[in-house]
């Protein structure tokens, strides 16, 4: 029984102030802050034991974060990491959505192309990274390709799924009003598919981040991957943890922003 019911069941008089206090406690924002504070405190305590010499406390990590921000290395690293990430993501989105829509509307191409992506979706593509290094060397191309192979399958399959199950009655409605093929695609199929396509883009984005970090840890250490592996090799753990925290925080914020853009630009009805 959720706690609020519990509150009303108690005798009214004695605990009036307590109930107000309890309502504050279970307010979502307060709880969220509480949970963050609890985890960081736990981390601080674990670091103090120390759990292991390689486990800095939360405050040390913040210190490390301050250091890598102050000397600009974090900012420089992010710029280097973002370069293959954004290009790879852009390619994956354009190609991925394009392929997904093509397959959704044209069955022979679905027959030909979909199985490759179905396997890619289930398979651990990270193992392909060394192959990309052989094929494209250790430069930017290999990293962009890594981002693409990680991000594309989920984008393609989500788009295909979205286009494939456009509500039948909407399609018939379009036809009954003599919508041409291109009108039907532009005005019915794509808008109806856009929520699911965007869900695919967010998943693709998360996969792209995994891709770029794997590329930087496996191909050659550049950007954030370099900050992480260099600090690991010189056992400067606060900076290492700070770099990892920053890329994780950044990816979560990036995906959150994508969701906000989607609602404002494409989904007026969600906003209303």
């Amino acid at each position, binding site marked *: 029984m959720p706690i609020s019911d519990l509150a009303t069941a108690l005798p009214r008089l004695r605990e009036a102030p307590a109930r107000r206090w309890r309502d504050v406690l279970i307010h979502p924002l307060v709880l969220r802050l509480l949970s963050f504070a609890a985890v960081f405190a736990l981390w601080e305590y674990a670091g103090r034991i120390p759990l292991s010499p390689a486990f800095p406390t939360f405050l040390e990590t913040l210190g490390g974060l301050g250091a890598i921000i102050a000397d600009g290395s974090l900012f420089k690293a992010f710029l280097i990491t973002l370069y293959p990430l954004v290009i790879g993501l852009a390619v994956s989105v354009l190609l991925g959505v394009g392929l997904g829509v093509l397959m959704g509307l044209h069955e022979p191409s679905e027959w030909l192309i979909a199985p490759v992506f179905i396997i890619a979706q289930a398979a651990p593509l990270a193992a392909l990274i060394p192959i990309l290094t052989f094929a494209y060397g250790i430069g930017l191309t290999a990293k962009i390709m890594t981002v693409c192979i990680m991000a594309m399958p989920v984008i393609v399959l989500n788009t295909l799924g979205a286009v494939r199950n456009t509500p039948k*009655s*909407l399609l*018939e409605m379009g036809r*009954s*009003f003599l919508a041409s093929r291109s*009108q039907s695609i532009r*005005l019915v199929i794509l*808008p109806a598919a856009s929520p699911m396509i965007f869900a695919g883009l967010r998943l693709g984005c998360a996969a792209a981040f995994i891709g770029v970090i794997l590329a930087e840890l496996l191909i050659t250490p550049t950007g954030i991957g370099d900050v992480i592996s260099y600090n690991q090799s010189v056992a400067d753990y606060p900076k290492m943890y700070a770099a990892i925290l920053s890329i994780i925080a950044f990816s979560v914020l990036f995906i959150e922003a994508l969701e906000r853009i989607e609602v404002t630009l494409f989904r007026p009805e969600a906003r209303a």
Partner: protein
Amino acid sequence: MTPNLAAAAPRHMTDLPSPLLTARPIVEVKSVSKTYPGGIEALSGISLDFPEGRLTTLLGPSGCGKTTLLKIIAGLIPASGGQVFVDGREVKGPGPERAFVFQDFALMPWASVIRNVAFGLELRGVAHSEREAIAERHIARVGLKGFERKYPHELSGGMRQRVGLARALAVDAKVVLMDEPFSAVDEQTRRKFQEELLELVANEGKSFIFVTHSIEEAVYVSDRIALLSRRPSRVSAIIEPKIARDDDPDRIRRDSAYLDVVEEIWQQLKHYLD
């Protein structure tokens, strides 16, 4: 031009020997049959005429193919055999002279009410301001004035179906095809819709083809009812309920003729269920 009756001699239900409605048939179904890929034969050589300016209902047991016939007339589904003529021209696919009202509303969730209603005109390339003016008129016509900027998920089931109806009227089609339009709304809204439909038929000067499985609804709104048999369906009877519809709509529900026709049809359809 007398309506040609189907091979099976349909029994005349009306008590008064007055002739069938004299209006010319706007839609003529000539021995149409339909077999689905799975081998299921939905319609077998059905022939039927739909008088202009009137509301004709296709009534029959569920799964008898009434929606299939409606979609064939709308051009959404190809017939396996036979032809359909609308205003003299053979139906090859959807056409501007026919508009469809869907059972599940088929509204675009991402579009506002006014954009949904104007969608038929938008597809036809009508200019933005002109189509919005027409849409506004029909929105008011179906009693949704003030909801132009709302989105489908913000409306009740009944209001959503009004949007569907306004959209069909907005393209000013000669024939409005309605596939169980009120089945997704609650009973009270449904009665209100039936009364408004009567008024619509009287004033709009359009022809309506209505599909329903509710006998009361059919008798209440229809000028003519085509009773369809079980699958593969053919016309088992044509009924033209003689009910005075001009005065108070509530009185009709208590009218003895109305109740007799309802009972008559029920007796016919009952044995299909056992």
